[in-house]
């Protein structure tokens, strides 16, 4: 049974990528909706299995860890698999209505979409350093292809920039992998972690970890390496932007976090952890400020991603040489932040796409008067904004509450200032858009009204992000011990 669930996760996205390659956009939509159904069921099934039986390792091809590639299926991994299933199906559904089916090149949307999905699943479950590199490249190249699809000069410039940044990040990561292999002779993360626990931190591996984390931070767009993100996320089509902001940047962060939690205690240092946390805080402040200053609606949302990503990097200082309980709190807070930001940001980008579609312009001023005629999309946008502002009872609030407790518990009170400032600043940019849309215009309804299904999807996502705060107990309990060994088979 588990075997087939694993197969569903790893191979159906790949199979669907090939199937949709052979169809045109309209047929691809039907094929995709079937695939989405399968993926959601399989992800849910695996999640339930893990919730019941606990995690396990899965050796592909019947070969176990040092020689073969092992997958690590634990509570955290399946939670992210499930998050991917929710967000990606919402984006796929939205894209099926949103994207013009008559343009010949849009038929390539679906294969790229499915390859992206399979890359994400490969990364969440990956337990092998080199395999994660291939998974990252799978994600990056399909994301770049999606940004560039049918784009004009500006979109191509953004995608080229994105591609070069992503390739540089992957190479830095790969160099770290090369050093670790030279050091330990093994590529399995769990194997290297065990070896590290036995040996005192050997010379040379510090640089390996630094290279890997730096490369992955570049791919996650940590300040000051974030400059490729806003153009790419701002100019892509809205369902693509939603996928990129909600899921793609999280994949590289997830690997960085796994590496830090496995290796950081032995080869990390207090200064490095504080530095990463400082950069994350700078991202929160600077990203929010830039989001406030943007003139284009989607640029606001894109810079807001830079800010929200900053919070994630507080994981590094809050788990370094602190007590087990504080570390667990920080990990849970970060996990909730990943989930709630994923849901909220996808909702925000999809709603922004609807708004832009209705007013026919991407500028914020153009939103004037839209509140009377498109309350639905605006409402979803606002709900998602509430989660970003971290007001109770949203998932964003619970996440920041846990981080707050972890900061105080570890004696690193200075992060509290960041958490508070970030919430206030995000309120500023969300309200700015609200104010623009509530400005009265004398004219009557001059807006294009998108199909109802386009408006429902972001609403569902925003409600989920809201509800996450109420259901966070259940979500966190399934992850039981996040990032921990969940019982080898």
């Amino acid at each position, binding site marked *: 049974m588990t*075997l087939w669930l*694993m*197969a569903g996760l790893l*191979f159906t996205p*790949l*199979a669907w*990528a*090939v199937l949709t*390659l*052979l169809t045109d956009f309209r047929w691809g939509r039907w094929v995709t909706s079937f695939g989405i159904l399968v993926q959601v069921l399989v992800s849910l099934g695996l999640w339930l299995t893990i919730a019941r039986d606990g995690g396990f390792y899965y*050796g*592909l*091809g*019947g*070969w176990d860890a*040092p*020689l*073969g*590639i092992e997958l690590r299926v634990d509570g955290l991994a399946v939670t992210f698999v499930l998050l991917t299933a929710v967000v990606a199906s919402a984006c796929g559904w939205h894209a099926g209505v949103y994207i013009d089916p008559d*343009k010949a*090149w849009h038929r390539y949307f679906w*294969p*790229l979409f499915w*390859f992206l999905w*399979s*890359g994400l699943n490969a990364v969440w479950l990956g337990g092998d350093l*080199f*395999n994660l590199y*291939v*998974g990252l*490249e*799978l994600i990056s190249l*399909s994301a*770049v*292809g999606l940004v*560039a*699809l*049918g*784009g*004009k000069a500006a*979109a191509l410039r953004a995608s080229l920039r994105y591609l070069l940044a992503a390739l540089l990040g992957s190479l830095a990561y790969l160099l770290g992998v090369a*050093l670790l292999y*030279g*050091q330990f*002779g*093994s590529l399995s993360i769990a194997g290297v972690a065990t*070896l590290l626990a*036995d040996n005192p931190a*050997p*010379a*040379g591996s*510090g*640089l390996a970890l630094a290279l890997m984390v730096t490369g992955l931070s570049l791919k996650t767009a940590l300040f000051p390496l974030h400059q490729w993100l806003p153009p790419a996320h701002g*100019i892509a089509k*809205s369902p693509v932007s939603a996928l990129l902001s909600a899921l793609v940047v999280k994949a590289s962060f997830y690997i960085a976090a796994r590496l830090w939690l496995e290796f950081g205690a032995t080869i990390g240092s207090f200064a490095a952890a504080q530095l990463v946390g400082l950069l994350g805080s700078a991202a929160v402040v600077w990203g929010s400020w830039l989001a406030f200053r943007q003139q284009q609606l989607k640029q606001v949302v894109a810079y807001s991603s830079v800010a929200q990503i900053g919070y994630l990097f507080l994981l590094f200082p809050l788990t370094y040489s602190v007590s087990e309980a504080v570390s667990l709190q920080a990990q849970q807070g970060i996990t909730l932040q990943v989930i709630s930001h994923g849901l909220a940001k996808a909702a925000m980008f999809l709603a922004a796409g609807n708004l*832009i*579609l209705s007013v*026919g*312009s*991407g500028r914020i001023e153009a939103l004037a008067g839209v509140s009377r005629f498109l309350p639905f999309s605006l409402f979803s946008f606002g709900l998602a904004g509430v989660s970003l502002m971290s007001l109770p009872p949203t998932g964003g609030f619970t996440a920041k509450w846990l981080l707050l407790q972890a900061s105080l518990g570890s004696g690193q009170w200075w992060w509290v200032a960041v958490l508070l400032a970030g919430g206030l600043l995000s309120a500023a940019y969300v309200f700015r858009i609200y104010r623009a849309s509530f400005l009265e215009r004398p004219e009557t309804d001059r807006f294009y009204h998108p199909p109802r299904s386009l408006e429902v999807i972001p609403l569902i996502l925003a409600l989920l992000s809201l509800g996450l705060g109420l259901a966070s107990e259940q979500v966190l309990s399934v992850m039981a011990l996040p990032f921990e060994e969940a019982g080898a088979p």
Partner: protein
Amino acid sequence: MMAGWVRTLITTLLCLTLSGALAASIWAIAGNPTPVDLPRLLSENMDRSGVAHPVTAVLLNFRSYDTLLEIGVLVIAGIAGISMAKTASLEDPELRTSDTLLYALQRWFVPLMLVLAGYLLWAGAERPGGAFQAGAVVAATGVLMRLGGIPMDFLRPGLLLRLGLGLGFSVFLVVAVASAIGGEAFLAYPPGLTKALIVVIESVLTLSIAMVLLALFVSAPVNDAEDPEEGGPA
């Protein structure tokens, strides 16, 4: 805004420091023995891998999941490439040359290179060689043919090209799933069939790799297809 030379200086220093630190780390790591002896583990398991050449065994048996995903990366690049190609045909008459030297070369080279590709593919099981090298040689042959003006109608971005792009990948996938029905895990080839399956996979992969690389080469000339930006002038 920093002045150009300041940024150049900073970048130079950064790169020099990095290279130095890297060299120091390599030197330090090289001094210690590795705790895991993976090459020995590999040679102990070679007789179960179905092929005699260790690199092929790693690529197509021990770490076949890497290879599967890697072909995925290649196919993605191919898809993104042809999504920007001239929509009617990938044939570009301007590129044809009437060079007699090239024409003469090609009459000798094309069959020779195809034979070479076949040899590389066949040798892969025992000696250096295999699907990637063979695929690259086939692609190079295609580039040569194209430069020589031999029409290649199958390279229209039609169903045939897309079928070719997906073929190697699909066969690999089918084998992966089929092996799970009979065996105990994905990508675990049933014993006895290992060699045959690896050869089949390698052959179709050669074709697909060549097709992707050729499509990317041929699709580099671009079309005028473009979307208006969201919210921009239609």
